[in-house]
């Protein structure tokens, strides 16, 4: 056992591409492992179903080309035998090492009570995919989150802005593997940028108006704290300076 690899070695090796994961190949003809939607997808779209994997014994993953995601997902939603009417999650995975980013759709059919995971692989130089907001309204904020943290652009998204990071965040997309853990700027620069943000990102206009006094503190340093005219010595000094000039 001492010569064998430690169980921590696999952790140190980091994530592997899903194509190398040694999951026992799925037997579509075996009734226990088969997923009706996968069979139907293969019949319907043929070559467009790039790969099919089963992980954690019963979770089915279907890989589809990113340029056909809208077509295939809308078929999954609308076909009477599928009816994936619930979009549980849209997220993305970056395995690093220049490997493509994966956009993950977690679908669930309330009617048939079955789940399906659909993945699209996007190469790093073409991080664009069609938005599915038109199919499921739930995709709106989820796709904004993926855009914010991974930098994947969703075409035809109604409101594609950052959602978690500040609107003027300039350091990139934090969940990408090429993003340094502590950010790209120094801590001082990060603090400076954080505090020089526009307050309108955080407060409504009337709230800013209510708290406005704190932005205009009167100078309270020694003699200046006195109202004008009460500090005669200072007034004399000032007039004296003016007279000498």
């Amino acid at each position, binding site marked *: 056992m001492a010569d064998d690899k430690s169980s921590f070695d696999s952790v*140190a*090796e*980091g994530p592997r591409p899903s194509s190398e994961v040694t999951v026992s190949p799925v037997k579509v003809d075996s009734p226990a492992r088969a997923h009706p939607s996968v069979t139907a997808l293969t019949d319907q779209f043929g070559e467009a179903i790039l790969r099919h994997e089963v992980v954690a014994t019963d979770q089915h993953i279907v890989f589809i080309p990113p340029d056909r995601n809208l077509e295939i997902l809308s078929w999954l939603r609308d076909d009477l035998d599928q009816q994936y009417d619930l979009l549980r999650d849209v997220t993305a995975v970056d395995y*690093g*090492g220049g490997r493509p980013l994966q956009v993950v759709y977690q679908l669930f059919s309330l009617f048939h009570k079955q789940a399906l995971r659909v993945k699209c692989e996007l190469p790093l130089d073409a991080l664009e995919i069609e938005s599915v907001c038109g199919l499921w309204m739930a995709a709106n904020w989820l796709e904004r989150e993926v855009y914010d943290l991974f930098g994947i652009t969703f075409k035809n998204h109604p409101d594609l802005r950052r959602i978690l*990071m*500040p609107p003027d965040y300039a*350091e990139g997309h*934090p969940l990408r*593997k*090429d*993003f*340094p*853990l*502590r*950010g*790209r700027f*120094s*801590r*001082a*620069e*990060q*603090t*400076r*940028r*954080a*505090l020089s*943000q526009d*307050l309108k990102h*955080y407060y409504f206009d009337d709230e800013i108006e209510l*708290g406005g006094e*704190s*932005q*205009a*503190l*009167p*100078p*309270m*340093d*020694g003699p200046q*704290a006195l109202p004008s005219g009460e500090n005669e010595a200072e007034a004399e000094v000032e007039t004296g300076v003016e007279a000498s000039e």
Partner: protein
Amino acid sequence: MGLIDKVPPRVVGESPALLGEGTPAFLTSKIDFLVNWSRRNSLWPMPLGTACCGIEMMAAFASDFDLARFGMERMSFSPRQADVLICAGRVTYKFAPVLRRIWDQMTQPKWCVSMGACASTGGVFDVYSMVQGIDTVIPVDVYVPGCPPRPESLIYALMMIQEKIRQEKLDQHAILRAEDPAAVAKPRADAEEIASVSGPFGNSTQQNRVSGSVRTDAISRPGDRIP
């Protein structure tokens, strides 16, 4: 920590008979005592619970620990009526301007307790999104260690604030409590100080995975430890 350490020259009053020369006069010391007594026994905290430390803070305020014994009868959810800002929990850079604004809105005299490891130093969160100690943003009077601290620790911190108030002199008040308008909405610490308190430690010194398959383009600065 956050208080200005300048001690002003003692003001010689107009009535030497009453004030005395060079020694703390009877009347002013009694006024000091009276004002400080009323201040330290009616501290109203502004709770800013952003994480699990906030749960311990609530426990300290609840009946088992009962901070009302110390005159903190009422949590003040408006910074205008608060005396002590208790920052309990981690603060993100996105939240930092809100924290600074709450501090700016509090009226003098005011104090600040940084509760827990994350608020004081950033804690385990040495990451892109976290403020590495709120003392880079606002002045802090007392730091409470712990993850999270026990309610007793928070009570002890507030007792230290009370002790600090007890030692304050009235004639220094105008200097101690002066607000610099130029400091509003600005970080308290300058760039050098922030860099010195936020050096990488622990996992953040190893930004690359062992396999080298993960390229992170880590920024290396002279102060960074080599893993």
